């Protein structure tokens, strides 16, 4: 008791958030009308009042953008004047068009909602729980919940997502980095700083295809440039060394060899990735399914065990790339109804005092221990938090509500 100052707080007073009571009604309504993105449970960041969505870590997106811009900048500055003079003026035009296409596709991939599924409402979750056979819920490891359904006469297992509290639709996967279930989950791309899923796969595909064209084009142009210079009587090395864009102290290093080197190394990976994704598009697979081998026919009888494939390459391509654009299921810019806003606000503001009110008698030792079993997907993490750590971690009521059953046992010990 001496090291933690706790006060008895009446739990009934907690239903009205303390911040709102003394303020004027106009202020409270302004405070209350919040948009849904502000209370979004996943790990995403939002900009422009919910219009732009990004993953929590932008990964190496700045690096990707930087590499593209720097390479193209060097190309336009040092190669284009020479090539326009000696070849044709279309070269910078084509490069500019490709560059714009690449950057727009990249930004669309990064800033678009990949197909995030909103989490189940409490009523929905309760309904699903009722339908599942519970077998002695006091065990620490409840059996993994799966449901088998028939898709196009093939048996497919649907797994239960403990975070989102629902059975995942087919081809949906939970991204642990973003903490969201994403429809038609392909992979989480650090280069792009976002998950790639149903809604932004076509942007991702056009990004890598156009980037392949851009890098090949720049690579070809730079090679042509060096060749043309060396044809004017000098050797290749001399041509590079005597170029006006030479960096003074390091031989052979000038600005267009930098572009050349970047293109050379990126071409292999980009072309390889494009080829791989072209194969995936043609067979209507996702990277996730391909890596896990979900549809690899072990029986050997059928050619394609993939129930989602249309069994025609053209139809698969058209369906994946030119199909209708599904809408965003998370209503980012919708306004929260006032009662939900209040419950969200008060949930985040009801903190440690609620626990202290319950265990006031044992506060003297300052040794409240909270045994929490957190279910993260199929893993279970058992945390034992002491009172001091609770204060520092600011465990909120909403956090605890997310934990699985049989948590919040109060082994108040020494």
């Amino acid at each position: 008791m001496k090291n933690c100052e706790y006060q008895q707080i009446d739990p009934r007073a907690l239903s009205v958030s303390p911040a709102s009571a003394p303020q004027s009604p106009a202020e409270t309504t302004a405070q209350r009308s919040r948009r849904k993105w502000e209370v979004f449970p996943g790990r995403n960041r939002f900009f422009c009042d919910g219009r732009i969505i990004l993953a929590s870590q932008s990964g190496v997106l700045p690096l990707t953008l930087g590499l593209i811009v720097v390479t193209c900048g060097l190309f336009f500055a040092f190669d284009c004047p020479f090539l326009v003079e000696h070849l044709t003026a279309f070269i910078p035009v084509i490069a500019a068009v490709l560059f714009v296409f690449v950057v727009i596709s990249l930004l669309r991939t990064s800033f678009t909602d990949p197909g995030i599924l909103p989490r189940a409402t409490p009523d929905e979750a309760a309904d699903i729980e009722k339908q599942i056979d519970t077998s002695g819920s006091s065990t620490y490891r409840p059996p993994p919940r799966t449901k088998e359904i028939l898709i196009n006469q093939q048996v497919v297992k649907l797994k239960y997502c403990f975070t989102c509290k629902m059975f995942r639709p087919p081809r949906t996967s939970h991204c642990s980095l973003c903490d969201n279930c994403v429809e038609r989950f392909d992979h989480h791309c650090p280069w792009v700083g976002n998950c790639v899923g149903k809604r932004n796969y076509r942007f991702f595909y056009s990004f890598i295809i156009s980037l392949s064209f851009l890098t090949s084009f720049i690579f070809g142009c730079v090679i042509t440039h060096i060749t043309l210079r060396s044809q004017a009587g000098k050797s290749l090395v001399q041509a590079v060394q005597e170029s006006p864009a030479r960096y003074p102290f390091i031989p052979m290093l000038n600005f267009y060899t930098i572009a050349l080197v970047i293109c050379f190394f990126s071409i292999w990976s980009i072309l390889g990735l494009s080829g791989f994704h072209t194969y995936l598009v043609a067979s209507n697979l996702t990277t996730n399914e391909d890596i896990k081998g979900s549809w690899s026919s072990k029986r050997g009888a059928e050619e394609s065990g993939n129930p989602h494939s249309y069994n025609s390459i053209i139809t698969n391509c058209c369906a994946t790339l030119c199909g209708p654009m599904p809408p965003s299921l998370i209503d980012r810019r919708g306004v929260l109804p006032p009662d939900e806003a209040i419950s969200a606000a008060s949930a985040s503001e009801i903190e440690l005092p609620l626990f202290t009110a319950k265990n006031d008698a044992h506060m003297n030792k300052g040794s409240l221990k909270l045994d929490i079993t957190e279910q993260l997907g199929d893993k279970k993490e058992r945390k034992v938090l002491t009172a001091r750590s609770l204060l520092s971690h600011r465990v909120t009521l909403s956090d605890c509500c997310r934990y699985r059953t049989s948590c919040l046992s109060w082994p108040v010990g020494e």
Partner: protein
Amino acid sequence: MRQQAAVAAKVFIQRDYTNGTVCQFQTKFPSELETRLDKQQFEETVRTLNNLYAEAEKLGSQSYIEGCLACLTAYTVFLCMETHYEKVLKKITKYIQEQNDKIYAPRGLLLTDPIERGLRVIEVTIFEDRSLTR
């Protein structure tokens, strides 16, 4: 009529995946609605909704043209134009509202638009009977 009726129960009609990932809902009539609603009407509603969603996701010439046009303009056309899917979703919202007004509200039921639940379920809220007889 305007006073808040108490919610007795909620029924969730789940998705039907037998034809793949296309948005379709199960037409099985839930037992909780047996006392309130006619099975035919319920099936009719769900079947119309399924048809509307199928129309939204149809792979036809219109969707291909829209997709190719979008690709050529580097997907900037989506910033100005409403997609075909969104147009059908508006039609669906109107249809659900109309069904609620005509059929479900008089019986103390309320259909929630699936888009508000992430296209996962059709939520049917059952209100308590006694508040309607006032």
